[in-house]
C-alpha cells in the first residue's frame, strides 16, 4: 500500500456540498432562535437546526426588515448541539452569506423569509465552500438556483402560516413538470428550457434522472406530524419545520412526533399513535386569507 497524500484534498466541491445535503435525507430540520431551542430540537431527533432571529410566524407579526441573525448566537448554538447548524441570509446578500460561512454555518439558506437585499439577482453560490439551500415554487426556479450553485432545493410553501397547501402546490408542480420532461424528446426539452428560463444541461439531467439532481426538501407551512407525512408522500426527501415546533403548545412532543411521522409516513396505524395526545399545533393563518402583498413566496424568482 502506498502512502495517502493528505495534501491531495479538495474542499467545497459539488460532490462534497451536495453530499452534505444527502446526509440530511429522511430527516427533519427545525428552525430555532437560540441555543435552548436547539437543544430541544436535537433531543427530539432533528438532523439539523436552522438558526434565525425570529421564527417566520413572528416575522410576519412583527413586520419591518428581516435580516440575518446575530452571528454571535450561532456560536452558542454550535457549542450546544452536535448536529449541523444552518443559518438564513437575505436573497442576494453576499456579505451576509460570507459572514455566515465564517461563523461556521454548515449550510446557508438564501431565504425568502428574510427581506430580499437584491430585487434581481441571487447570490453566486458556486464560489462558496459552504453549501446552500434555496426555495423554489416550480422546476424552472429550482434549476436556476442549482445553476447558481445551490446544493439543496426546498419548496417555498408559505412560511409562517402553518398552512401546508402552498408547499403541496409547489412540490406537486415540480414533480409534475419533471414527469412531463421525461416524456419529451431532446428538442422538446430544449424548447422547455428556453420557455422556463432554465439551464439546458440541467433540464436534460433532470429528465434523465426523473428527479431534481440535488436533494429536494419540503418547507413552508408544515405544522403537524400529518403535514410532514403528507410531504414525504409527495416524494420530498425530508422536511423543514419553521414555526411549527416552537409555535406549538408542547414543542418537545411536537418535535419528536414530526420526526417519528417522517420515518413512519407510509404506516397509517403508526401515524395515528404518533399524532395522538401531542398538544395543539400552531394556530396559523390560512393561505387563502392572505393578500398577495403579504405572501413571502413571490420574493426571488
Amino acid at each position, binding site marked *: *500500500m*502506498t*502512502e*495517502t*497524500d*493528505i495534501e*491531495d*484534498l*479538495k*474542499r*467545497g*466541491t459539488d*460532490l*462534497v456540498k451536495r*453530499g*452534505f445535503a*444527502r*446526509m*440530511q*435525507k*429522511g*430527516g427533519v430540520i427545525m428552525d430555532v432562535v437560540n441555543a435552548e431551542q436547539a437543544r430541544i430540537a*436535537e433531543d427530539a*431527533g*432533528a*438532523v*439539523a437546526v436552522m438558526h434565525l432571529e425570529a421564527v417566520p410566524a413572528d416575522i410576519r407579526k412583527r413586520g419591518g426588515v428581516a435580516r440575518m441573525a446575530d452571528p454571535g448566537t450561532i456560536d452558542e448554538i*454550535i457549542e450546544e448541539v*452536535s*448536529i*449541523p447548524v444552518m443559518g438564513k441570509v437575505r436573497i442576494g446578500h453576499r456579505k451576509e452569506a460570507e459572514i455566515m*460561512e465564517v461563523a*461556521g*454555518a*454548515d*449550510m446557508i439558506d438564501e431565504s425568502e423569509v428574510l427581506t430580499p437585499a437584491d430585487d434581481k439577482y441571487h447570490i453566486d453560490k458556486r464560489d462558496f*465552500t*459552504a*453549501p446552500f439551500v434555496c426555495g423554489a415554487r416550480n422546476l424552472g426556479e429550482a434549476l436556476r438556483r442549482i445553476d447558481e450553485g445551490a446544493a439543496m432545493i426546498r419548496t417555498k410553501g408559505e412560511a409562517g402560516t402553518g398552512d401546508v397547501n402552498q408547499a403541496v402546490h409547489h412540490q406537486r408542480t415540480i414533480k409534475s413538470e419533471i414527469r412531463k420532461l421525461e416524456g419529451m424528446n431532446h428538442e422538446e426539452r430544449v424548447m422547455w428550457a428556453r420557455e422556463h428560463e432554465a439551464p439546458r444541461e440541467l433540464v436534460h439531467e433532470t429528465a434523465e434522472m426523473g428527479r431534481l439532481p440535488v436533494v429536494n426538501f419540503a418547507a413552508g407551512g408544515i405544522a403537524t406530524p400529518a403535514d410532514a407525512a403528507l410531504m414525504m408522500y409527495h416524494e420530498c426527501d425530508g422536511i423543514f419545520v419553521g414555526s411549527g415546533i416552537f409555535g406549538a403548545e408542547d414543542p418537545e412532543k411536537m418535535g419528536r412526533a414530526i*420526526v*417519528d411521522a417522517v*420515518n*413512519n409516513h407510509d*404506516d397509517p396505524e*403508526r401515524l395515528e399513535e404518533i399524532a395522538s395526545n401531542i398538544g395543539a399545533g400552531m394556530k396559523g393563518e390560512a393561505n387563502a386569507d392572505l393578500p398577495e402583498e403579504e405572501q413571502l413566496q413571490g420574493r426571488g424568482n
Partner: protein
Amino acid sequence: MTLEVGVVAVQGDVSEHGDAARRAAANHGEEAVVHEVRSAGVVPDCDLLLLPGGESTAISRLLEREGIDEEIVAHVAAEKPVLATCAGLIVASRDARDERVETLGLVDATVDRNAFGRQVDSFEAPLDVTGLDEPFPAVFIRAPLIDEVGDGVDVLASWDGKPVAVRDGPVVGTSFHPELTADARIHDLAFFENAEAAL
C-alpha cells in the same frame, strides 16, 4: 443467487447505498434485493446490512425507538456482513464519547465525531485502502475519526495517521462515504469477501 440486502433507512443517504449494493452484486453476477429498514422485523431476513451516513444522533434515537437496534446486534452475532459508513460507523462503534449517541458495540473501536470540524472542512481525496489496487475516491463529510481500535480490528485505511476504514469480523466501517460515487469497491470488499464465509 439473490442476496437480501437491508439498508437501515430511518434517516440518511439510503438510496445511494441501495444502488451501490446493487452495483457490487452485479459485479459478482448476483442480484441484490434491497429492503429499506424503518421498523423492526425486516433485519432478521437480510443477508447483508448497510448502516448509511446521516446524523448519528437522529439515527441512534430512531433505531432505539423502533426496536431495530437489537436486531442489528443479532445480525452481527450471527456473523452476517455489515457495512457502516460515517454516522453508521459512529452508531456501530463501541464508544462515540458522546452520551447523545447510543452505540451498538459492533466494531471494537472508539470514534471522535465531527473530527475534522464544520462542513466547510469536509473534503474529497484519493485514499489508499488495503485490498484495493488503486486509490479509492473518498468523500469525508463532517466525518468522524477512529481513535482507538481493539486487538481484533484490522485497519484498512488511514488519514493523517488515524484509521478511517476498519474491519472487525463481519463488520466493515468507514468514516468516509463510499456510496457517494459510482465506485462500488468498498461495498464489494465489505460484502463479497465476507459473504462467502457467511452464506
